[in-house]
């Protein structure tokens, strides 16, 4: 509930025409001012109460906290022993059991690096270099092994939350430059390049993500020369990158359109050529304008990576599902896993959403 409270407390979310603060001593009028208002309040409170009763009953009162599957089956509430028994599988999939400290370290390192990178003050070339030269190689070595005496773990054994993070983060990091290039192609004055850009963007945006995932997993092997096979994980990753790039391109296009033409003309009059104008004048202004919608897009893609389940990759949602289908727990833990997964996705998405609103405020208060 604290999550919701912080979201409500955010001024950008609440209406600008919210009722003026009620005079002191008459705070009740906002809730019970008119008969209609009182009715709405009572109905809403009733709904909240009924839902809370249902939820608390299932989550806590009727729930089993310790015990065996058989004990769980006897009660009607939630079965929490399922989660604790399956926790390591849910988080890490088929990653070798005794090596699971590696994905755990990788995940913590990744989250820490993300939190540091979220502070606008540290943004700059140094941060980018740190990610490319330090963070990503360390993450890769931790996951894949092969160096410093770490055993090699093939990508087929990767799974769970680290896989979800990797697919969404690497996907978006690679899609961003590609999307910017596509946006520039779409805005280009050269007709052939513009047509290529528009075709790519519209084709990718016109089809569902799972069709692109299908293409990457089923069709792509047919297009590969004999003897060359590409790892399934990489194929899905490429599909996500291409898909995200088309959407990023449209957002960046909005930013490009919002930069006044005079900026380009000024650049021309200074004798700069196209790439200099774009890199030094137009893109910095355009990208700054579209950071909030980009963050919103990132949230959407973090959720969309769940679709790799459909082509048989063991992401977080898939490890949860397979854990629930374990013969030992089947038919007992029907909802617990989904509820847990929903909470995990909710927390990460809501945090990113709050961050997006923070950025919106930040850029509104700075003067450049």
């Amino acid at each position, binding site marked *: 509930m604290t999550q919701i409270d912080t*979201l409500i407390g955010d001024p950008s979310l609440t209406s600008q025409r919210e009722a003026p603060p009620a005079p002191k001593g008459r705070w009740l009028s906002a809730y019970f001012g008119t008969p209609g208002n009182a009715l709405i309040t009572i109905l809403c409170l009733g709904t909240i109460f009924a839902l809370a009763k249902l939820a608390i009953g299932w989550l806590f009162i009727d729930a089993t906290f310790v015990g065996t599957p058989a004990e769980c089956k006897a009660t009607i509430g939630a079965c929490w022993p399922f989660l604790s028994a399956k926790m390591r599988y849910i988080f890490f999939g088929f990653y070798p059991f005794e090596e699971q400290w590696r994905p755990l370290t990788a995940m913590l390192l990744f989250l820490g690096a993300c939190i540091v990178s979220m502070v606008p003050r540290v943004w700059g070339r140094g941060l980018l270099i740190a990610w490319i030269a330090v963070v990503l190689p360390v993450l890769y070595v931790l996951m894949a092994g092969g160096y410093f005496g770490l055993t090699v773990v093939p990508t087929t054994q990767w799974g769970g939350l680290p896989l979800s993070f990797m697919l969404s983060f690497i996907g978006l990091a690679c899609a961003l430059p590609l999307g910017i290039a596509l946006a520039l192609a779409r805005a280009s004055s050269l007709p*052939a390049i513009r047509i290529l850009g528009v075709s790519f963007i*519209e084709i990718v945006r*016109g*089809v569902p993500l799972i069709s692109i995932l299908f293409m990457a997993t089923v069709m792509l092997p047919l*297009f590969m020369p*004999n003897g060359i096979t590409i790892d399934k994980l990489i194929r899905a990753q490429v599909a996500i990158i291409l898909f995200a790039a088309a959407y990023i391109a449209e957002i960046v296009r909005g930013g490009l359109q919002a930069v*006044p033409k005079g900026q380009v003309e000024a650049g021309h009059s200074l004798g700069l050529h196209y790439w200099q104008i774009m890199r030094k004048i137009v893109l910095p202004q355009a990208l700054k304008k579209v950071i909030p919608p980009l963050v919103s897009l990132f949230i959407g893609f973090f959720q969309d990576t769940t679709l790799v389940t459909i082509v048989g990759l063991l992401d977080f949602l898939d490890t949860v599902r397979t854990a629930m289908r374990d013969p030992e727990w089947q038919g007992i833990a029907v909802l617990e896993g989904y509820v847990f997964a929903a909470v995990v996705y909710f927390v990460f998405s809501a945090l990113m*959403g709050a961050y997006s609103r923070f950025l919106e405020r930040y850029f509104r208060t700075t003067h450049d």
Partner: protein
Amino acid sequence: MPLFYDARIRAYLYQVIAVGLVLLVAWVMFSTASANLAKQDIATGFGFLARQAGFVITETAITYEPTDTIGRAILVGIANTVKVSLLAAILGTIFGLLVGIGRLSHNPVLSRLMLAYVEALRNVPLLLYLLLWYSLIISTFPPVKQAIQMLPGVFLSNSGLVMPALHWESGFAALVTAILVGIVAATFVARMLGRQRVVSGKDRPVALIATVAFLLPLVAALLLANISVTWDVPELGRFRLSGGYHLRPEFVALLLGLTLSVSANVAEIVRAGIQAVSKGQWEAATALGLSRARTLKLVILPQALRIIIPPLTNTYLTVFKNSSLAIAIGYPDLVMVSNTIMNQTGQAIESIAIFMGVYLGLSILISLVMNWYNAKVALRER
């Protein structure tokens, strides 16, 4: 001066290189694919569409038998996709409009409840919700053998809701025509009376006259056409229910998931649209003595609609594409039917090309309309 420094020539050069690269990649992929297919003895082309499908589709919006062609099966998939996305879009819009207005309510309890609803839906992946609804339906309702009889002929079980279906012996077409004529007549009459009121100031009972205009053709059809109907009442056998109209859990779960996700998006779009209408409009309407509800309906919503429509179209596009998640819970939409065909015939490239083509065709159509609209309303620069 070398030719490369001429801006025009350089522009041509870039374009030739870009197009050449794309063609080269396409050609390499095409030739390796045809070589691979020839080696694996997979026939190419769309001839397989005329072959007999041979598989069962559990839910069909148009008539289909396993003896029909594969082409027909794909049509069934398209019809199922359109059916579920259309229904979800309509229901989600109605529901989302209410939630969006509730979000703006002066009542803090209501607006916060609606905020919690929107946040809960937008921050959890749609696929997770689909699986959740599906397993909820499957696990909470009893198996078919112990189906609950809610009303005579209405059975609820974990294979869905079965209820009596109407069978039209004759007169169906006449009835549909009468309803359509009635709608057109009622709209026309209401418009005409509205215009008259503006001109002459006469206040007539518009709603009553419009209702009469709607009912007249219906009464005519009932009197003139020979309408006969029989009920197809489901019966509970030893292992399964036979007859009746079957509302399957896959369809319900998909429709529920899509509708809720549409409603959350529509709610946010509506809220943003309403908030974008300037405050003075509210004040002016209040000064005229309009109530809050009437202000919303007569003054604010018509103006907000201009801002609402483009993102709304996007939401409809998204629900149309998201209906492809049906494959995760087994509702036979276009993607799932194509997937079945792919597994049976081995013709992956053609199957994927067909369903991507269908999605693309419909999406591009909507996208073109959107871009035209966007260009029309966009601010003109020098």
